[in-house]
């Protein structure tokens, strides 16, 4: 965070305000300021030209303090004021009939019939639109002497507030002209994924609007709401109509930076959908660089040698951006409307082409971006919700470890290490077995991930452990179930014979999930997903934290349903507690494909499960269940009891493993390499389908979701596996 602005700056500002505009540059030169100081001062001058909320006076800023009452409206309870501007006030209200929160925008009493007509026009405009990323209008009405719009209430912050936060944590003020360092958290792949998903959503929503013949004309970060910091919603349609009539108060707090040159009057051209494309381009530019393109540069560019689209090259402020994305922003921000994408649909198509092709520099592989956005549209939401926090954390340098080796040590004297297999990096199955001395209780290992098999008097335990350089992992078996758990419920597991298999998808853009030959040992896999009741026994016995969905008071109705909202680490801990382990990515896939290598558990026809599930009316949009407030309802409506053979329907392999394609998604024991500096640790792989998460049925070799191993993702549960022991 930049330090306090010295008082002298405000005195300089006072001098500049007094000076003629033409003398200001000269005056600034005479102050003899450093580059930073000058930029601060210029920022203050810019602010001085903007209207300020202080102009409203104490009554305007703090109406309730003066004894002002909130408006009353029959059928609604006004809860609090969300914002205000020249035209009116927006309140958060509760709909007393439907019991939901809504946003109500009033226009000020006596604002005139013209203002009322505009509000009505806005309501009618939005009513013509039906898109999940556009805030819908519920109602238009009038009561007493005022008119109002009731629309959906989106809880969250605006993109403008979000960007402010990121700028602060990245220590990159809006008026800085410094390029972003390549290792800035903004350049992490995870952040890039977030950005591209966001921009893609915005283009998609605006493409819908343009198809309906509607130009927003006032698209900007403060008109984009981020629900739970992730899902964007476009709002304030039709406002720009007010702006174009020349009513000065509609400009209060606004910024012309997102305005296309034909809107600001810099060029003489009609306002078309490409004017919105310009705004989308500026938003993309700002997301990529944290700054805005130089103000009025389009006007200056005509007078100077800077070519028309050069000024809008985000690589000037962030050289690490792939060339193709920079080009996309430049095209969108072209000065001449005909040089831009003609509407948001065209921009969307261009963005998708970028995502499908190779990127420069090639080192920054966007394979995962393409995979997630292009194919699945399901993003590991949990990884993004705290992006600012993650960004800040990533600034802490990673200290080099004192030793590149660590190890495992057993604490229970009756235990011995039987085998250790490397299970490192982007592992979908076990790697080479590491030779160990018989009866070992302590083994030193290079850093990495391992499957460690230990033997006790009671049986064999398989454990997956991450060895960090310089650390020794101690294994205490006392916390485990201890008994030969496999024998206790043999009918609940299915034997999958070992052998040579090919796993992976030729369509996969991820090297890690391209087809590969694997050799696996025979293993057992649970017929059904682990239930809440089973998981609850584990929580009670070990004191592990319960899944979020359970809430404060556990509802027994959850008992037979599959547990969700647990992290990969949680799932692993449970599996070890019952004496099992999680299946690897390869094992899961082999189980789901059946021994005859079918595409889906029931065969090769993707339509079969759809016909069975048609009644559940899955929406064809991806949702992020980890952040959806309706998650509980979605969960109850979307899952069936683990072990309910009828509900599972055809979702059953010939070997008798149920719900691999449907019900909830499932953690595997496998991980991908870290995606970028903004993420700590590795990414766990989940497979299968979560309730209502994807419209299409996943092919057995499709990867559903990749999330931080510690993230508790609401759509993901798990089932256990176990290697068939050769020791007995």
């Amino acid at each position, binding site marked *: 965070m930049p330090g306090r*602005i010295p*008082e002298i700056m*405000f005195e300089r*500002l*006072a001098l500049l*305000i*007094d000076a003629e505009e033409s003398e200001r540059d000269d005056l600034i030169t005479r102050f003899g300021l450093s580059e930073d100081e000058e930029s601060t001062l210029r920022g*203050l001058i810019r*602010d*001085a030209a903007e209207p*300020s*909320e*202080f*102009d*409203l*006076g*104490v*009554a*305007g*800023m*703090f*109406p*309730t*303090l*003066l*004894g*002002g*009452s*909130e*408006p*009353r409206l029959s059928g609604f309870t006004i809860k*609090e004021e*969300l*914002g*205000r*501007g*020249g*035209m*009116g*006030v*927006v309140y958060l209200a509760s709909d007393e009939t439907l019991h939901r929160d809504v946003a109500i*925008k*009033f226009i*000020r*009493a006596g*604002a005139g019939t013209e203002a009322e007509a505009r509000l009505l026009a806005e309501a009618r405009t939005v009513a013509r639109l039906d898109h999940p990323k556009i805030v819908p209008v519920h109602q238009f009405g009038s009561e007493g002497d*005022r008119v109002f719009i009731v629309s959906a209430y989106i809880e969250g*912050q*605006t993109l*403008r*507030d979000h960007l*402010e*936060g990121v700028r602060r944590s990245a220590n990159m003020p809006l008026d800085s002209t410094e390029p972003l360092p390549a290792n800035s958290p903004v350049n992490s792949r995870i952040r890039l994924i977030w950005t591209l998903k966001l921009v893609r959503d915005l283009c998609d929503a605006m493409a819908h609007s343009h198809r309906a013949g509607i130009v927003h004309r006032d698209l900007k970060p*403060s008109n984009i709401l981020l629900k739970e910091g992730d899902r964007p919603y476009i709002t*304030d349609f039709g406002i720009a109509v007010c702006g174009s009539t020349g009513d000065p108060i509609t*400009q*209060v*707090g*606004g*910024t012309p930076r997102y305005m296309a040159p034909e809107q600001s009057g810099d060029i003489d051209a009609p306002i078309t959908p490409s004017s919105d494309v310009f705004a989308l381009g500026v938003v993309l530019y700002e997301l990529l660089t944290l700054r805005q393109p130089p103000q009025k540069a389009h006007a200056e560019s005509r007078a100077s040698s800077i070519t028309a689209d050069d000024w809008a090259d985000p690589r000037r402020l962030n050289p690490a951006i792939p060339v193709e994305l920079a080009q996309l922003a430049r095209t969108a921000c072209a000065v001449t409307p005909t040089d831009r994408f003609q509407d948001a649909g065209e921009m969307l198509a261009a963005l998708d082409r970028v995502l499908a092709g190779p990127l420069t520099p090639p080192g920054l592989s966007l394979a995962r971006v393409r995979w997630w956005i292009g194919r699945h549209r399901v993003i590991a939401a949990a990884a993004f919700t705290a992006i600012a926090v993650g960004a800040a954390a990533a600034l802490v340098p990673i200290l080099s470890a004192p030793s590149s080796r660590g190890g495992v040590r057993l604490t229970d004297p009756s235990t011995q290490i039987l085998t250790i297999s490397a299970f490192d990096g982007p592992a979908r199955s076990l790697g080479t077995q590491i030779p160990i001395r018989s009866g070992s209780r302590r083994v030193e290992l290079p850093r990495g991930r391992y499957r460690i098999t230990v033997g006790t008097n009671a049986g064999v335990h398989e454990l997956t452990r991450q060895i960090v350089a310089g650390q020794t992992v101690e294994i205490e078996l006392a916390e485990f179930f201890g008994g030969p758990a496999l024998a206790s419920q043999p009918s609940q597991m299915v034997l999958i014979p070992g052998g040579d298999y090919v796993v992976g998808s030729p369509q996969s853009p991820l090297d890690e999930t391209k087809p590969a030959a694997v050799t696996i040992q025979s293993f057992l896999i649970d017929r059904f997903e682990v239930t809440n009741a089973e998981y609850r026994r584990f929580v009670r016995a070990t004191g592990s934290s319960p899944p979020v969905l359970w809430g404060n008071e556990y509802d027994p109705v959850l008992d037979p349903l599959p547990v969700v909202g647990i992290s990969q680490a949680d799932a692993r801990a449970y599996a070890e507690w019952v004496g099992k382990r999680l299946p690897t990515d390869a094992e899961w896939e082999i189980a789901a494909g059946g021994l005859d290598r079918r595409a889906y558990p029931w065969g090769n026809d993707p339509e079969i499960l759809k016909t069975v599930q048609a009644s559940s009316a899955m929406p064809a949009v991806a949702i992020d269940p980890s952040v959806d407030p309706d998650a509980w309802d979605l969960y109850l409506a979307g899952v069936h009891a683990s072990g309910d053979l009828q509900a599972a329907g055809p979702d059953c392999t010939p070997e008798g493993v149920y719900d691999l394609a449907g019900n909830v998604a499932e953690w595997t024991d496998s991980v991908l390499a870290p995606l970028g500096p903004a993420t700590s640790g590795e990414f766990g792989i989940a497979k299968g389908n979560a309730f209502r998460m994807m419209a299409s049925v996943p092919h057995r070799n499709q990867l559903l979701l990749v999330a931080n191993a510690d993230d508790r993702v609401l759509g993901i549960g798990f089932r256990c596996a176990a290697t068939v022991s050769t020791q007995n």
Partner: protein
Amino acid sequence: MSDADDITILLGEAASRSPEAIDRLLRLVRDELRLRAARQIDHIGTPDSIEPTALVHEVYLRLFGSGRELDWKNRQHFFMAATRAMHDVLVERARAAVAEKRGGGKRPLSLTTDPVTKGHAERFLELDDALGLLERLRPDRAAVVRLRFYGGFTIQEISELTGMSERTVSREWTVARIWLKTELGDDPTQQTKFTDF
């Protein structure tokens, strides 16, 4: 403004505690304050207009309550005092609202029954702290803010009241506005949202 001129004359008489002068002064001040509050409210145009009677009454009590010295030297002095009284009442209300929210203190006697929106109260107090600092750094600048922000006076009126040129008042107001914004950290999450529509 003949009423205002009257106020100046009456102030002189009130200082000598002439009963008629005090009575007329009270009525005039009351009207003046109400007018001032109404003007601010009209400026923002909330859907339900603010009923300033309660506030005006509180300010009035503070100005003329028992034990107060009626020793304003002139009109300017009086308006400064009225503005200060307005400010003090609001600070009291805001503190009470914050204290009430924290479950602590009792709400002092107040003629208003509408709850004070919580964010308003806290942000108001932050603003007030900032203004206190400005007062120490640049008392003239702070005076302009007080008259403009709490008193609702126009640039022209402030110029008349303070003797500064309009240009100076306008400049001081602009600089003070930015100073306050910076001082308050301009944290969008803390701020009363001021959306642009």
